[in-house]
């Protein structure tokens, strides 16, 4: 595989993670459990969309076929999206959203910390800007995990169940394929296999502080890197792409 192709794949994965999770979080707009929380979660959604925009734009440049950030965000079919499965899971109740967010933020934080040192200057620059926001996302999702886990008996039981349910989607974050091998060899991105034990230790410590139990590692879903998604992805895209499909080239 050519390095250019590997880099394009790699950028799409990063961009799709941010775009799809940002889109899921944006569904809370106007429905947050409290006014303040509604604003806070939408700030996170907007941060993620900002990351997605920079990454899609750069992916389009790397690909060199004249595709813009909008083309990449709105005009691909499901199999061409490479976001991690965890990012497309339903929002559920607020504990589900927080558990999904914490597990992803912890991963994203470790990943972008490494990407700041990328041999690719554009990725390093995007990461240096994004990491400040990601650090805040992580701080918030940890705070909420602590409060829900160590809150009432009901909040404790419900968020424990959220972590248990989502756990099987976390393995997918660390799957590596031939594009990753190219990226690691070129010093563009970190070895995900090396991040996994660090991620696990951090998650374990946070859950312990929140009086929660880290779920057992069992069978894990995978496939996002080949574009194999959960049943939720089609529904996300039908809503996300509606305007561009119905009114091609529409701008506002």
């Amino acid at each position, binding site marked *: 595989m050519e390095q250019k192709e590997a880099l394009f794949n790699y950028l799409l994965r990063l961009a799709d993670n941010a775009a799809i999770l940002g889109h899921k979080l944006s569904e809370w707009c106007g429905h947050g459990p409290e006014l303040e929380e509604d*604003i806070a979660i939408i700030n996170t959604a907007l941060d993620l969309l900002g990351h997605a925009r920079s990454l899609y734009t750069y992916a389009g440049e790397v690909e060199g076929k004249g595709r813009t950030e909008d083309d990449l965000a709105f005009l691909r079919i499901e199999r061409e999206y490479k976001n991690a499965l965890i990012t497309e899971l339903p929002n559920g109740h607020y504990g589900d959203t927080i558990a999904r967010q914490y597990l992803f933020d912890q991963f994203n934080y470790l990943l972008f910390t490494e990407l700041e040192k990328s041999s690719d200057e554009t990725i390093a620059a995007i990461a240096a800007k994004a990491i400040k926001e990601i650090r805040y996302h992580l701080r918030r999702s940890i*705070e909420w995990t602590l409060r829900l886990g160590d809150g009432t008996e009901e909040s404790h039981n419900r968020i424990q169940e959220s972590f248990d349910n989502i756990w099987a989607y976390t393995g997918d974050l660390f799957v590596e394929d031939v594009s990753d091998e190219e990226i690691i060899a070129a010093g563009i991105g970190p070895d995900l296999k090396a991040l996994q034990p660090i991620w696990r230790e951090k998650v374990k410590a946070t859950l312990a502080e929140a009086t929660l139990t880290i779920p057992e590692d069992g069978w894990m879903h995978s496939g996002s890197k080949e574009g194999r998604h959960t049943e939720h992805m089609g529904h996300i895209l039908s809503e996300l792409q509606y305007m561009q499909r119905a009114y091609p080239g529409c701008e506002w």
Partner: protein
Amino acid sequence: MERKDWPLWEVFVRSKAGLSHKHSGSLHAPDAEMAISNARDVYTRRNEGVSIWVVESKHIHSTLETDSESMFDPNEDKIYRHPTFYDIPDEVGHM
């Protein structure tokens, strides 16, 4: 399910180094740390601040509306308390 409202907090934001914290508004939060976090998201998302104070609203003691006649009105006509009867040299600059 019984619903308990989170306590109310008053938010003070310093817009830049050297200036004092000014009251920005209020918000609800379960505790001080989340109040700071919420204040960051509600009151500084358009780059309004470099520092935040929060205090639970119940800890603020205030004058009473009904006292305002005796508290404030008597100062309306005491212009001699304003330091406006001498010229400030230009070199002094902003005071």
